[in-house]
């Protein structure tokens, strides 16, 4: 299976990857370009770029709202590809979307045309939250053909056979879902993360933890627990939403995104350092 060196290479033991998410086109095409680029400046190692789907069943309210804004502003799969092509960033881009958009793009031909186009504009891999390993073969094949990675999500409920099946299919990195539920920033960090990480300890793909990470200290905590990277979505989308609601200048919002990215990246680095030094704080 494909294993794009750019993607797996972004995760290093002493330089854990910071993987931010934004919905492409939120709140509009131009601003969104600025925002994504700001994340890269802030230290993103990989960017998960959402292609909005009208029924985002795996998302929490924050990202759902972002998707609604992006759709209202005219985002479509074709516009998304233009967007990716136009982006001026030098980190790997992962396309996060729902399967119907991938499937429908190719009409009768299945996922291949979408993947081909994505590869063409510079996408490195996919995360498809409504596509479990059982249904992933056609997409996996297309990804292999075009040398793209297919990231799977390991949930706290994923155990036994399911883990094995996923391990066979996953490439790029594995997305470790930190807790039950849907995406969304939260104030605590779950013990489920440690258990999940332990279950896939011996996998040879990088482990990126997402769901609920809100600030640098969370990031540090997660990395100390063994993650190779952290995925942050809602905490960043919150900044975009706030800027949109308050009608802030794009540059001001971009600055805040960049600062937030920096805080998170630094947190991840701090975690890696603490882990290396085996400094485990009392509260653990």
């Amino acid at each position, binding site marked *: 299976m494909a294993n794009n060196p750019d993607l797996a290479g972004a995760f290093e033991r002493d330089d854990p990857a910071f993987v931010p998410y934004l919905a492409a086109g939120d709140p509009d095409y131009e601003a969104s370009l600025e925002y994504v680029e700001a994340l890269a400046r802030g230290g993103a190692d990989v960017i998960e770029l959402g292609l909005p*789907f*009208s*029924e985002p069943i795996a998302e929490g309210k924050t990202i759902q709202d972002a998707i*609604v804004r992006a759709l209202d502003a005219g985002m479509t799969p074709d516009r998304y590809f233009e967007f990716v092509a136009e982006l001026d960033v030098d980190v790997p881009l992962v396309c996060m979307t729902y399967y119907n958009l991938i*499937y429908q*793009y190719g009409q009768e031909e299945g996922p291949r045309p979408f993947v081909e186009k994505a590869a063409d504009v510079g996408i490195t891999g996919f995360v498809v939250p409504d596509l479990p390993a059982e249904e992933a073969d056609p997409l996996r094949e297309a990804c292999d053909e075009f040398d793209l990675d297919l990231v799977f999500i390991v*949930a706290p409920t994923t155990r036994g056979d*399911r883990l094995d099946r996923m391990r066979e299919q996953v490439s790029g990195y594995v997305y470790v879902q930190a807790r039950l539920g*849907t995406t969304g920033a939260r104030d605590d960090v779950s013990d489920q993360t440690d258990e999940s990480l332990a279950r896939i300890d011996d996998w040879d793909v990088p482990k990126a933890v997402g769901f609920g990470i809100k600030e640098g200290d969370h990031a540090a905590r997660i990395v100390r627990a063994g993650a190779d990277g952290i995925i942050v979505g809602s905490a960043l989308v919150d900044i975009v939403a706030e800027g949109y609601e308050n009608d802030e200048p794009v540059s001001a919002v971009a600055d805040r995104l960049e600062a937030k990215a920096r805080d998170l990246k630094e947190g991840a680095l701090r975690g890696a350092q603490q882990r290396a030094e085996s400094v485990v704080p009392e509260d653990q």
Partner: protein
Amino acid sequence: VKFGQYGGQYVPEVLMPAIEELTDAYERYVLDNEDGFMDEFRQRLRDFGGRPTPLQYADQLSEAYDTAVYLKREDLLHGGAHKLNNALGQVLLAKYMGKERIIAETGAGQHGTATAMAAAHLDMPCEIYMGRTDINRQRPNVFRMRLNGAEVNPVTVGRGTLKEAISETMRDWATTVETTHYVIGSIVGPAPFPAMVRDFQSVISEEAREQIRDHAGRLPDSVVACAGGGSNTMGSFAEFVDDADVDLLAVEAGGSSLTVNEQEGVAPNSATLSTGDEGVLHGARTKLLQDSDGQIMESHSVSAGLDYAGVGPELAHLVDEGRVTPANVDDDAALEAFHRLSQEEGIIPALETAHAFGYLHENPDAVGDVTVINVSGRGDKDLETVIEETEQRDLDVDVDMSVFEAAEGM
């Protein structure tokens, strides 16, 4: 887990273990009657639900259309619609599985009320997600759910209707999946839901097939049922699928027009089987109302219960196979059929159900000499809508409500 190319399990990973657990429970309890599950289910359907429901010869319709019209009276089921067959089955199954809590989404409120009733009956805590807009326009159903002890959680995202409520329920489930069962209300969603809901609903055709033999001495030439998500449809068809001479007619909501507005993402109908194409929605590959990009369209129908952009994968497959014939009637025809059945047979049907009778009226020759029509629900819930919509239209059959002015004026 597939029906031809349709079906499958397109759900977030976090839910997959629950789906596998449910699949296992479905096979053991429903298919193999482990621990006497099906016996208890049937007994509760009988004593609590009121099964069997009658098959009634419709005197006036039969004469009007010169064909023997038999009505399968699911409107007489507890709660007023076929919905309880499924809700009771799933809540009981959840109990057998050791789940502690039930969640469900509801649009018009029919599935929510059936689930709340079943949960109260089986002493299970129950929460229903319902769009803000729907809560305000379906107050009586909200009352009923609350009275049955269910929590009703308003969903305020987006338009505040069924779609949003489904997403919100998925979110709850993704969080509480270990202790909670999500009672899906139709033959949609990831496997094993479509097959399981069909099995719970197929009691309709099981009874009807026996009853029509008693009444008419033979199988019908056709079975007609309205189709939204498709649970009453598949319930009415299931036991007749192998009877090759019985035509199976699925009548969808033609709404105001079959022409879609791609620009606005709006289909002014819910005729998924007739006009939709293949895609993936809410956990299954099936026929959908979607734009060319794959974004789901807003469907529309005067009947809230048919107003859904997807359809059960099994129905999609049976239509492709040519076993089920899709048809549709528009809002006006459904409203006229509502009035006609009310006036001529003394049965006020649900607006969903009225579509099946609209089809009969427009195609009396298509149903053969003996037809069974599923009266999927009663129309008490639709009174306000029907009065309002009737006033705005120029229908061939209607009724005037000037009695209220008379009562005030005098």
